[in-house]
């Protein structure tokens, strides 16, 4: 860990000012990802700007029925918030599938969106990694890549985004509210994270000096027919090999609206409008789910160890859609896959 300065931001504008004043500065919220990376010498901020006491902890309904969630709402509070439990249970479920109770207590919404990949080479400064050290090479490409991406990869990086929450947010069509030196803006969650391309060191479209202030959930929460299924190497407290957030609107057994986002397979939560469109108007049957899965996974490629993920993802998508259609969402508390 390096030596760093510490400043506590008094308000959002102050945080933006402090960021602008020191290009090596980093925001710190819950610290559960940033501090770990600092301990590994992966992140070496010159200054930590502590935003954890800013008044960004509200969950409020807006006039149009959307829900605005402050960037500092702890993951646990959000998962157990009555409005989330009732209107957006998919989000609650995805959050509870992540990390551990202690981590969720500390982790913030903004930090969760910004968490970095768990690629082991990214964490190990003794190995080449384009994301950590641009131009040094990608050790995972021909190395250990069992949990690496199968979609949207580039020759420079095959890392995945590890967030569970983001997968549900992608499915729900959430927006990200951002404040920065040139004012405020809003971008879709699905446009927030980037594919690695030639710049794998840039995870998101958050600009220099910008800060996430809130996320916004559109009114429709798919509270009837949803499921979040996370497949991992143990039953809890492990990052996803594959995860699926599925949300359906049903009229009888016919699908009138569908959202599917897949986690653990790409540098960002993976959605396919083609797949969702294909589901619309169809009966909620395994065949149609399977077809949607094929569309979602179009173009999937794999390296030496992660080939299994393609078929696993396909099956997980089908299963999750079935859970959603049957209104039997995956429980995150039982020691069992439904």
């Amino acid at each position, binding site marked *: 860990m390096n030596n760093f300065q510490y400043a506590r931001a008094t308000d959002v504008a102050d945080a933006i000012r402090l960021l602008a004043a020191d290009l090596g500065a980093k925001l710190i919220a819950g610290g559960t990802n940033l501090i770990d990376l600092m*301990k590994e010498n992966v992140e070496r901020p010159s200054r930590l700007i502590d935003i954890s006491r800013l008044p960004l902890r509200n969950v409020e309904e807006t006039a149009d029925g959307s829900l605005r969630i402050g960037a500092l709402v702890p993951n646990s509070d959000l998962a157990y918030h009555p409005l989330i439990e009732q209107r957006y249970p998919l989000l609650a479920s995805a959050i509870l599938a992540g990390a551990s109770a202690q981590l969720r207590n500390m982790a913030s919404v903004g930090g969760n969106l910004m968490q970095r990949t768990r690629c*082991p080479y990214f964490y190990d400064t003794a190995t080449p990694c384009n994301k950590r050290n641009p131009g040094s090479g990608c050790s995972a490409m021909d190395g250990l890549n069992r949990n690496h991406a199968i979609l949207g990869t580039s020759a420079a990086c095959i890392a995945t985004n590890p967030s569970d929450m983001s997968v549900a947010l992608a499915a729900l069509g959430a927006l990200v509210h951002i404040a920065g030196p040139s004012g405020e803006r809003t971008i879709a969650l699905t446009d927030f994270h980037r594919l690695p391309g030639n710049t794998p060191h840039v995870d998101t479209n958050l600009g220099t000096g910008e800060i996430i202030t809130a996320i916004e959930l559109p009114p429709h929460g798919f509270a009837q027919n949803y499921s979040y299924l996370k*497949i991992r190497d143990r*039953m809890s407290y492990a990052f996803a090999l594959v995860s699926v957030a599925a949300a359906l609107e049903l009229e009888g057994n016919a699908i009138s609206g569908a959202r599917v986002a897949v986690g653990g397979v790409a540098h960002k939560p993976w959605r396919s409008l083609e797949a969702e469109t294909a589901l619309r108007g169809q009966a909620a049957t395994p065949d149609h789910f399977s077809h949607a899965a094929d569309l979602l996974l179009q173009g999937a490629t794999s390296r030496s160890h992660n080939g299994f993920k393609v078929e696993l993802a396909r099956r997980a998508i089908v299963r999750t859609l079935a859970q959603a259609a049957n209104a039997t969402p995956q429980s995150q508390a039982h020691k069992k*896959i439904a």
Partner: protein
Amino acid sequence: MNAYIGTPTSRVDGRAKVTGAAKYAGEFPAGGLVHGFVVEATIPCGRIATIDASETLKVKGVLDVLTHANRPPLADKDEAWKDEVAPEGSPFRPLYDDKIKFNGQPIALVIAEDWESAKFAATLVRVEYEQQGFATDLEGERSKAAEKDRPHKPRGDAAAALARADVRHEADYVIPTEHHNPMELYATTAIWESDGKLTIYDKTQGVQNVHKFLCTVFDKKPDDIRVVSPYVGGAFGSGLRPQYQVVLATLGALALKRSVRVVLTRQQMYGLGYRPMTIERVGLGAKSDGTLDAVTHEAIAVTSRYEDFARNDTGWAEQLYSSPNSRFSHKLVHLDVSTPCDMRAPGAASGVCALECAMDELSVALKLDPIELRLKCYSDRDQSENLPYTSKQLHECYARGAEAFGWSRRSPAPRSMRDGKELVGWGMATGVWEALQMPVAVRIVLTSNGHAEVSCAASDIGTGTYTIVAQVAADALGLPIENISVRLADSTLPQAPVEGGSWMAASSAHAVLAAAEEVRKELLGLAGKMPGSPLAGAELADTALIDGSIARADDNSRAVTIADAMRHGGVERIEKEKLNQFAEDKKHARNTHSAVFAEVRVDEELGIIRVTRIVSAVAAGRILNTKTGRSQIMGGVVWGIGMALHEETVMDHRFGRIMNANIAEYHIPVNADVHDIDVIFVDEADAHINKLGVKGLGEIGIVGVPASIANAVYHATGKRIRRFPITLDKVLD
């Protein structure tokens, strides 16, 4: 005299542990304490060309940077570095010279006023290496395997018998490298006393082992160093040998003449020992009636370039299954890695896993129930020595375990027991471990108020030694357990070996009995001299200590209270120390046994495996404490679940680096992976092994568990996965 022995007594140290009153090695305070942080090598093989600490030394608070170039003297001879349990070879010496032998090797110690400064300053040490070619991949280097050991002499002609067998099964089973990951980090606080002597608080399984080691490594007299380790937050074998942080903390204290603490990070602990990866090749040849004609077992294991670490992976069939022909061999491949070390049931956990998977495969080939096959081959003798056992209730383990599990309701065909989306599988395996015992000395100080202090250098690594010692002492001295205080793990206390091999319960218990007998002898002398004593003329053997009195064993009413006897004799305290040696018995084999039954449920589409039930029936002689004993077995079972499904140290052989050196990515079972665990202690009276008939429970709990799960996975899915851990990608493959 058995108010406590054999009862479910709660841990006497439980309260101190859960309230934080128990202090661990990295927690002892000292005036002027400073902190060392370890700099590790980032290459697996080569030498340090230059090491530049100039920037480090500029950091405020940094006091010194110790390297091979500037450290205080260390012993030159291998003998000085060989601890009580060192394998053959030339032990690793931290900061000794410029050679790099493994990735993660300590190459410098940055010492600063506070830990954070040391940690930061450590990042500024600039190291240039001269890299050399290296190899870390056991499977890639398999052809270089050289025979190290034959655990047992071959019997008959196993190769020929295997070739002619009616039914033959031969396969490789691969067990990956695994790390212990005890909860407590490795730590040493080396306290520089005013007289220049050192008190070393160390995380270790053997204070006297560390003491002797430090004395030879630093050329000190025994009185110059004292090693203390009152509580250990798990070690599982990783603390049997002195670990490098104790050398570094001591070096620091000697260099600065100050108290120094060194605490390793979780990541750095992956540079210590580990369970070696092994390729286990098992061959079984059977007659069509299900009796065995040949057993072969060859293990190929990783070790370092500098030491030959080898354990008995392969010999266990000699104890379990009768076969006229057998051959065992343990081979080593030397790689550019640190030396492996013991890890819970070393050898057996891996070797029996392979053997028991192979037995399951044989039972399928023979169309025999797996228990029936094992009963057909049941061996009443240890075949290698042709000896009977002191006791062996393994058949009872099979019977009681099967009954509790409901084994008779198993439908033998794979994939035949479905429940919704899940395939249900039932598997079983046998476990076996040694019943070892070692010389241990105990001191008892009895005061006339009926309190006793019982002390011994043995460690309690979380297994419950404090409690066992207190129980046995309370019974042997006839006192309530509240009146017994136990002191352990101080090198100045009476002799004890490292705590390992499951030998400490039996060994410490009998040492307590021996010392208590000395106390009783003295009390009898005092009581017998009292006027009109009811014990006048009584022989020692006819007396017992009961309810605070010394009494005639056949008539407890003829008694003198301890207080009266001591008052009359004019003594305030009776202090006795006794070294207990077990009588040598070359006429028996000594083992513990278990039968483990597992139920798994495998999601057919997704490959997710859940271990929903385990029944472990254990025969281990008399169980001294059924509560801590049960916990011990449960811990072994949970670890066995991990060995079957989760644990694997993953290395990138291009860099020779471990890539999951943390407990986020190195998986062990979490609560959600653990369901019902039923522990059964089978009655096993043992008149031969020792007075109390105790065998020890530390390791038997894990042995057999991974195989029972693997066999259940086969039964569920019809898929035989011989490469551990059994992850879902292998199930889906």
